[in-house]
């Protein structure tokens, strides 16, 4: 069964025809070519598919596309236009080796962003709770935590006006 939904994705209004059995992660990847949205487990465990839905992080593998009609979605693609224009969190991940294979990174960064927006100066414990829904199978958590601590320092008190996302 087909249905048409209207969604605002990374600031752009989109009208997308979707199958009613399509999950949001597939819609973003296959219809809108936002392949920064990764699908690891499709069971809500790994968090690689994390996106912002109406301002809150969700696992887009566990949402039906037909069920997000009218919603606003932000993916990792909204954070930067390219390697020379990285978001402070992305820059911190690069400089602290916060990624190895990179598969979990888009979800990690969006979870970090949500955390730092509600808690600009988190403790290590709060960071670990904040990314509890994101699994890194390279097990590089130590450097991910370090990256988020560095990102907090970069963003603290001097949010970059050119990165409203």
């Amino acid at each position: 069964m087909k249905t048409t939904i209207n969604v605002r994705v990374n600031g752009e209004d989109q009208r997308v025809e979707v199958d009613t059995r399509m999950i949001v992660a597939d819609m973003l990847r296959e219809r809108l070519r936002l392949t920064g949205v990764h699908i690891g487990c499709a069971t809500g465990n790994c968090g690689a598919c994390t996106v912002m839905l109406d301002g809150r992080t969700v696992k887009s593998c566990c949402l039906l596309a037909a069920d997000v009609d009218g919603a606003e979605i932000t993916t990792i693609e909204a954070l930067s236009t390219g390697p020379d224009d990285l978001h402070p969190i992305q820059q911190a991940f690069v400089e602290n080796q916060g990624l190895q294979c990179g598969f979990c990174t888009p979800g990690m960064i969006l979870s970090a962003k949500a955390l730092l927006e509600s808690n600009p100066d988190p403790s290590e414990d709060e960071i670990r709770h904040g990314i509890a829904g994101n699994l890194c199978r390279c097990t590089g958590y130590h450097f991910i935590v370090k990256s988020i601590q560095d990102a907090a320092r970069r963003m603290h008190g001097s949010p970059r006006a050119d990165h409203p996302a």
Partner: protein
Amino acid sequence: MISNEIEFHAPATLAEALELLRVDGEDVTVLSGGMSLLPMMNLGIIRPTKVLSLNRVAALDHVTERGDEILIGAMVRHHRVAADPLIQRHAPLLAAAARVIGDTQVRNRGTIGGSVAHADPSADYLPALAAAGGSVTLSGARGERTLTPDEFFVDLMFTTREPDEIVTAVTVPKLPDGWRSAYQRLARVEGSFAIVNAAAVVAGDRSAATVALGGVGPRPVVIDATEQLRGGVDEESLARVGEAAYEASQDATGDVMSDAEYRREMASVFARRALREAVGPVETRS
């Protein structure tokens, strides 16, 4: 992509949703946050042909104070249960349980009504609801009914909800002034389902105490711990509560995470821990 075709409905009102269930209830799967349903659909464990989403029914997304009770609409998501000032003040046990459900993303989407209707025996809300003396309200074509946890939960993921009914609210009596509550869970890692969980409610003067346990049977197990605490709260009386928890957990079953005996032992430990946290510092006998 999910392999079978789905007829999808997302009405904006409860009346429309109930009408759909009245006509077609046996064939319709109700979707709220989808934190359990979607993984099962993605894995092909269940293959619903008709899905009724409640995500547009704004009337189910409310927290309301009504006399001595707090009503929590079925579509209130866990992050709000954890942070809502009315719930924090009057039903802190529910807020404590909501805070540790899954992870941030799950709490941002999952709903209290969905969790309760799904009736997973390890769910965080179940012992909290049972210990707090809460109830579950259902609406259907034949009207509304409100059930105690004992009446609502029947067996593993099985409730007395009829196919034409929707869980519309969870109601919790306000915790009286001076009363205290606590929630404790045992899990291998943060975000995984609890192996055993325990919720405790204690009167300010310790004249009444209840502990409810999850994960030790198909439905919540409730222990009235008033008698055990009659002579005061100390390690001895807490040990008696632990024994009662062990005895009451005789329907525990084993799984890959833990065998039945371990669950019963942990029920004893976590009943004591929840109660100890609820009463605060324990006097020691000299």
